[in-house]
Each structure stands twice: as C-alpha cells, then as structure tokens.
C-alpha cells in the first residue's frame, strides 16, 4: 500500500461547508428561487397512455391572460434529454412538446400566468381533443406482432430511422466461445430474474426558473446534475449561442440519477419565458414527478457453466429492459448490465443479448447503481446457489472466482476497460463476515416457528466514472474541468461546475485542493458558479465526483502550487524545489518555507499580497481532465434479517457494510453514503415498485408516496447493529488514492436480501421486490422444504 506520509485534512472528519445553511433553512434549491415579476408556469398532462392530439384550443386560457405553449409554439427539434453518450450513441426521440402523448402524465401543453390561481384556471380552460390510440403497457404487448408503434421513427446518427416492433435498441456482446465453454462445463445452471421499476423518490421534485433578458439571453435555475449539459441542450433546441444561456448551479434536493438528463419541464419553462418575454417558474408536484421518471424494469435469464472445482467457464445472459415511452439511454444501459455482470467474476467465455423495448409508461432513466444492482442481483444470487451446490462457503468460493487485483474489468460497458490496481475485497469480506457472525448462520430451510432469521451476503462494485484509455471512440463523454485561484489574502477559490448531490462531493474536492496546495481547509472557498464562469464538467454520475471531478481540481491545484513556488523562489531567492508549503492552523494560512533555513519563509497571504501590490498578476489555473481508468469502488454487504412467516414482513436486524473507496477523504460523510445505500437498497429489495394500472396506464399510487414507499426510520436497523468498514487501499490512479463510493453503496442490496431470506426460509426469490405478499404466497405453496431445491433443477452436461 502506498500512501502519503502526512495528510492534513484528507481522512479527517470535517464539517461540511454547506451544513449550516442546510440546518438553518437558508440553502437555496431551484424551487426556492424567486425572481421579481416572475409568472407561474404549469403543465397540462395527458390522461391517456397513448393518444394523438387531434386539436388543441388555448383561446379560453389566453382570454384569461395566460400565455400558452403547445407543440406548434416550440422548435420542432428532436432531442435526447441525456447527452452523456457520445453522439453516435444518442437516440433522439422526443420534442419539448409533441402532437402525440406516449404515456399518462406526458406534457401536452403549458401555461404561464401572473398568479398561481390563474395558471391553474388557465390549465383547466385548455381544450384538447385526443384521438386515443392502443396502449402497450408491458414489453410483451409492445413486442407482439402487429402491435401499434409507439415511435414511427427516431433520429439516429442524423437520420430518421424507423423503429420496428417497438424495439428501441439491441446489443450483442461476445467474448470467447460459449459453445466451447459450456461443452467444457461439468455443470450448468440457468435461472430467470426480474427487478421491478422503482421510483427515485428524491425529496425535491423538479423545478425550473427562466429569466429572459432584452438581448435575447436567458438565465436558468434548474434541478439538474449537470448545468453544462442543460445549457448545451437548450442551445440545441432553441438555436441560441451558448454564451446567451447561463445556467446557475444551485443545491439539489436529492437526485439518485433522476436529473442526469435535462428535466422535461426545463425546455418547457424556457419556451414559456421566451414566448411571454417574462421570467417564468415551474415547480412540479410529486405526482408529476412520479410520472416523469423511474428505474428500468429488467428481466434477465442467466446461464452459467462451471467445472467441478467451481471454476466458471461460460455464461450466457439475455436481458429485456422496459424503457417506457422514451429511450433516454437504453443502449448504454444494456451495455452496463453486461459490463457489471462480467466484471464481478472471471468468465472466459460470455455472450450477452440485450433488448430494450418501448412501452407506454413513465420513461425510465438511470437510478443509483445504473444496471449494477440488477446485474449483481442475478450474479450474486446464482453464485450463492452454485456455492451451495458445491458445498462451499459462498465467501470462500467467491474469493476464488472474483475479478480483483491485476484483472481486467469493464465497468460501464465494453468500451470502458481497465486493469484493477487496488482491491479491498478480501479484507472487507473477512471483516464483514466476522461482524455479522457469518459462521454461525443457520442452515437454509431448517427453521420452524413464526420468526426465522437468516444472513445473506453479496458483493459488488461501481466503476469510478467512465474513463478509459482511448479518448476517441468511447460510448461516453467523460471529462471534468476546474479552476483554482489564489486570492490576494492567500485564500483559495475553488471553482467548478460539478454538482454535489448532498454526499459532500465538493467538500471532499475542497479538501483535495487544500491538501495539495498546503493551506488550511478553512482557506478554500467553494464558489457559487454558473455555466458562464466555469469550464465544462460532464455530470455528477457514475460515482465519478471525487475520482474524476476531484482529479481535475487537483490538476489545477498542482499547477497553482507550481506557480506559487516559482514566484516564492524568486522572492525568497532560493530554488523552488527546496520549498514546501504547509498549513499553519496558528496563522490560519499556508506557509511557504525552506526546511533548515528559518529566514526563508513567508505566508501565502504575504506572497499573494506582494504579487498584487507589485502588479505581478493573479495566480490561477484552469484545467480539464479525462480519466484513463475507472477503478472499481467495491462494496460488500452482509445483512441479517428476520422473516415473520405469519405476515411475510422482513425486518433488517443487522448489517455489516464494507466499502473500498481507496483513500477515505471524509470518513463521516463516506459512512453516510453507505447507510443511505442500505436504506434505499432495502427498500428496492423488499417493498418498492412503480406500478401502473394495466387498463389505463395510470400510476397505481395515484401520486401518493405510500405504495412501495420509501423506508422510514422505523424500518432502519438499530444503530448498534450497523457496522461500517473501509478497506485500507490506495488507488494509484485516483486523487490522493481515492476512488468512488456513493453510487456503489446500493449495488449489493437486492442480492444480499434475497440470499438472507433464502438462508432464513430455504426459498429462493428471484424477483424483487420480495414483498410480504410474495413471501406468504411462496410459504403457502412450497411449505418449508428441507431438501435443496436447486439440486434437482440442475442440468448436468
């Protein structure tokens, strides 16, 4: 392990800079922005899952004094709201407003009016005649021969391209030769899995404010994970030069992937502002938000071949993904499922067939884990089963097969390949097993009585960003920029457009900058920024914030430091190589000095002031960085559950969570990522599912947050039963040895819960959520089986 000998702020718990604003209620979110004379915007949404707009009459709304927007008022520019994929892989299928509604809740028209009451009234006054079309509410219906088309054509590589059978995109990925691989296998196992769509349930719904200026420029405050992508897309749609669009960075009330793309209300609000010539604000309701996005519904069949000694020799995965009404990132999503799957364990021969299908439902988009929770679910449940068949401890067995130090791994799809240079898996599995009492776990299916306990484990990872060695030809755009500036008093401005979703990303990056330059953390300010004053950053996603965004800021900090040392060497008359900068808590400053020569010393403030009064200029640097690796941030879960066989309710009794995020920049905040991951992960494993009425296509929840609800504090394990550990690793390619953490923290949850419930009941669940109803149904039909069911289903080749 390689580490820096002395670190001043990295690795210590520090209070986040935005903390006090958040606890005292002064932190501003997009929904809190108020602009003088702004009008209220509202959106009219389709009550039908699939309908053509035969006519739309806004005259009554306009007579009330409202400004109205329909498909006839917006540029006919087809776009994809998520622009992280490189253009050859962008599938454009939506307009700001269209003449066809493809899911219940899709925007049909919008209004802006001086008061909220008037906007509500104006919405009711719009008359729409719909020509209702047959709706395909599941993949099976959409794929049927002769099923009506949800999209006739989409814009792909500059051409209108027909969509056949509602199949948006397919992917075939092959490595080695599976025929040969399966022929060499001693045993083959094949299983089917399903993971339900889940609502992101971020606490803040989407809001946007747009303020037009007389010169035709606009300022936008929007709920988003990327201010630069929002700006670029608005420019593409409205034909404005980028410098005329300024998107402000503003706090976001949770996102979990739901705002990687530009939210659908953003261009609507801009359209209203441009048409009315006034500032307009739209704040969506919870119900509107629920109709706006969810996690992909995924069905997977996995066939694995292995030798008698457990060595995996071949795997074949078939995946069907339901996209909903728009293809936000189907191509990439199919790729990452394959990537996460084959990167968990060594598999010399693999074949992957993925199909993404349009349906008339809420469009899907990335949600924390993006394919990894589902790929891990399938893989880790099947590996648990194989271990059992082989009579081996799953932890021991998995350690013989996993991809670790020195192995190649894929991360986000086949173009994102790197070699693993840091690996904390063995350490985390050992610690977790000890803390949960793994060796004392029950034998599956041996318990009787109402309450049955079980322990399950699963391991996973997320790649830190989507970097790869080749800068061209990749599926994904992946770079960050940052500006670091030395102020005239020796303090530092850290200026970056990268978003912090609440995990403390910017805080962590400020620590990297402070550490590198050698100033106390209190001397680094996180600037309030916008697109006009920052350089490009792709998006905070794929757990890349600290690893990739931080690395860009570090690069800028290094260059600032070099300039500081250069100037200091001139002023102190000593070569710059002999100078060091260290933070002095006493002076509240960074101090430049030459060890052994006490007179060769000045504070950063003194240097900066000297440069200022003598007109030497400002020390600042702007840097961009594309990471050439995407190292795996490993996560391990051990969970202990108690299943109530009378109610079917599963309670989490204890959990031991492990994270290998390389150097831990802020331990307290990092631990918070894991507890948050467990809470969401347990929800997805046990309760949460976005469901639609099979007839109407309406959400079964009717916009309430209670069906498949977010877990509350009552369903969270007691503090004393929650163990969190970090691996002692150092990632050579990461800033100060750090890699990602946040997104990875949810990935093993589905599998860990399924395995724990199996351990308690002796019944395998391969469909999540594993609701109380499913448990009761399984208990009543199967009774408790003492034999191991999988053995009989095993095919020996």
């Amino acid at each position, binding site marked *: 392990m390689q580490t820096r000998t002395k670190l001043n702020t990295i690795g210590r718990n520090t209070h986040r800079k935005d*903390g*006090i604003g958040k606890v005292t209620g002064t932190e501003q979110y997009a929904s809190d922005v108020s602009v003088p004379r702004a009008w209220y915007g509202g959106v009219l949404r389709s009550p039908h899952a699939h309908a053509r707009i035969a006519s739309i009459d806004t005259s009554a709304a306009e007579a009330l004094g409202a400004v109205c927007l329909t498909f006839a008022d917006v540029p006919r520019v087809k776009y994809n709201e998520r622009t992280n994929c490189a253009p050859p892989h962008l599938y454009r299928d939506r307009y700001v407003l269209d003449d066809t509604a493809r899911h219940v809740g899709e925007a049909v028209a919008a209004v802006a009016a001086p008061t909220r009451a008037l906007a509500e009234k104006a919405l009711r006054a719009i008359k729409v005649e719909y020509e209702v079309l047959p709706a395909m509410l599941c993949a099976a219906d959409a794929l049927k021969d002769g099923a009506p088309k949800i999209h006739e054509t989409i814009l792909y590589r500059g051409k209108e391209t027909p969509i056949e059978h509602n199949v948006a995109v397919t992917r075939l990925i092959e490595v080695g030769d599976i025929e040969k691989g399966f022929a060499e296998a001693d045993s083959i196992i094949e299983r089917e899995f399903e993971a339900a769509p889940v609502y992101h349930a971020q*606490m803040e719904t989407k809001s946007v404010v747009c303020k037009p200026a007389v010169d035709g420029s606009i300022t936008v405050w929007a709920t988003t994970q990327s201010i630069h992508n929002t700006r670029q897309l608005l420019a593409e749609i409205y034909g404005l030069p980028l410098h005329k669009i300024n998107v402000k960075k503003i706090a976001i009330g949770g996102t979990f992937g739901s705002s990687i793309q530009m939210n659908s209300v953003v261009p609507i609000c801009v359209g209203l502002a441009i048409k009315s010539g006034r500032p307009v604000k739209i704040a969506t309701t919870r119900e509107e938000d629920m109709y706006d996005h969810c996690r992909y519904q995924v069905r997977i069949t996995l066939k694995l071949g292995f030798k008698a000694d457990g060595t995996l020799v071949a795997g074949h995965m078939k995946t069907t993904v339901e996209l909903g009404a728009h293809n936000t990132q189907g191509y990439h999503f199919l790729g990452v499922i394959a990537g996460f799957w084959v990167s968990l364990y060594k598999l010399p021969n693999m074949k992957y067939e993925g199909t993404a299908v349009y349906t008339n439902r809420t469009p899907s988009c990335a949600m924390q884990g993006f394919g990894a929770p589902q790929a891990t679910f399938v893989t880790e449940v099947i590996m648990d089963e194989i271990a059992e068949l082989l009579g081996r401890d799953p932890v021991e067995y998995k350690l013989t097969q996993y991809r670790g130090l020195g192995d190649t791994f894929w991360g986000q799809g086949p173009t994102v390949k790197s070699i693993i240079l840091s690996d904390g898996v063995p350490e985390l599995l050992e610690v977790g097993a000890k803390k949960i009492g793994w060796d004392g776990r029950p034998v599956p299916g041996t318990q009787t009585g109402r309450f049955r306990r079980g322990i399950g484990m699963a391991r996973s990872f997320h790649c830190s960003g989507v970097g790869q060695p080749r800068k061209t030809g990749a599926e994904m755009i992946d770079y960050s920029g940052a500006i670091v500036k030395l102020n005239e008093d020796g303090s530092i401005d850290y200026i970056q457009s990268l978003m912090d*979703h*609440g995990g403390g990303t910017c805080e962590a990056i400020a620590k990297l900058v402070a550490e590198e330059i050698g100033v106390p953390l209190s001397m680094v300010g996180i600037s309030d920024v916008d697109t006009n004053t920052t350089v490009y950053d792709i998006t905070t996603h794929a757990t890349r914030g600290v690893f990739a965004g931080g690395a860009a800021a570090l690069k800028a900090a290094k260059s600032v430091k070099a300039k500081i040392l250069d100037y200091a060497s001139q002023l102190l008359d000593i070569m710059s190589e002999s100078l060091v900068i260290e933070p002095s808590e006493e002076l509240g400053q960074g101090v430049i000095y030459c060890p052994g020569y006490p007179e060769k010393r000045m504070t950063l403030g003194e240097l900066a002031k000297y440069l200022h009064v003598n007109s030497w200029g400002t020390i600042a640097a702007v840097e961009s960085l594309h990471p050439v690796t995407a190292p795996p941030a490993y996560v391990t879960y051990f969970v202990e559950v108690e299943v109530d066989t009378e109610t079917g309710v599963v309670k989490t009794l204890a959990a031991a969570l492990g994270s290998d995020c390389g150097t831990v920049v802020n331990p307290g905040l990092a631990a*918070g990522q894991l507890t948050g991951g467990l*809470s969401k992960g347990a929800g997805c494993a046990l309760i949460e599912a976005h469901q639609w009425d099979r007839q109407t296509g309406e959400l079964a929840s009717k916009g309430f947050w209670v069906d498949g609800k977010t877990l509350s504090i009552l369903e969270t394990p007691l503090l004393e039963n929650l163990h969190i550990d970090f691996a002692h690793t150092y990632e050579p390619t990461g800033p100060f040895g750090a890699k990602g953490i946040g997104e990875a923290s949810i990935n093993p949850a589905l599998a860990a819960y399924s395995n724990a419930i199996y351990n308690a009941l002796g019944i395998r669940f391969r469909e999540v959520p594993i609701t109380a109803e499913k448990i009761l149904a399984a208990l009543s039909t199967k009774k408790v089986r003492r034999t191991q069911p999988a053995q009989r289903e095993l095919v020996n080749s």
Partner: protein
Amino acid sequence: MREKAIVFEVNERQHCTTIPSHRTLLEVLRALGYVDVKCGCEKGDCGACAVLVDGEAIDSCLTLAWTVEGRAITTVAGLGNSNNPHPLQAAFARNGAIQCGFCTPGVIIASESLLRKTPNPSDDEIRFALSGNLCRCTGYTKIFEAVREMVLTRSGGVLR
C-alpha cells in the same frame, strides 16, 4: 373564491394576510418567503413541510392556512441562524446528519417538537417521532445519532 384576512405569527413576526379558503399553510408560508419550509409531496407523506404551531409539529401541507389564525408558527429558520444556531441545528451539522438537506428542516422541526414534549426520550420515542419524515439520502442513522446526542447533552449524559 372566499378570501379573508387572517393574523398569525411566523418566527415572532406578525403577519396579516388575505388568503383564499383553500390555500394550505405551506403555500402561504412559501409565498410569504419562508422557503425554508420545503414542499415534498403536499399530501402528508413526507414531513418536509413540518413547522411548529404553538410548539407542536404539524405538516403544513395538510393544514389550511385559515386554521392558524392567531397562532404562532416556527419554521426551522426561526429556531436559529448561522451565527446562533439552535443546539439541534448544531448537532445535525456536527454529526453529518444532512446530505442533500431537503428533508432537514422538517426533520429538525419534528425533533424539536419531540424534545419540547419529552425532554429525555427513549430511542424508540425518537424513532417514532421521526417516522413521519422521509429521508432518501442518509438512511437515518446520522439523524438518529444527532438527536440522541442532543438528548445526552441535555440530560447530562444519562440515556433512558
């Protein structure tokens, strides 16, 4: 639309505002600029909109504004500010009980309401009091720790 002028107090400031009968307290507070009161669902599901009415936490989205006539409302900004934070606010900041911070105003209000009624609550009482506040980010652990730390400090280190 029926409207009437009602008088009420927010964070020790008097307001006299004309309000239509169907407006909720949440809508009115945010329109008056108290945007520290968050709107999470407007259906009573999430607790983000909690405020104290005469010292007791309520969901302002489920409260018609007319019903607070003559009463005193405290929002999270009324508990303390950055120069002089309320001990609970300080405990939340210290314990990292905040991530995105959107649930935080409601959670702090619910905690304060509990501690006013029950100065030395048990762990279960803390959990129950916060069970109406959803938080998607933290998994609640650090929130719980922050409230428990407050209780400990207040009771001189004795937990029930």
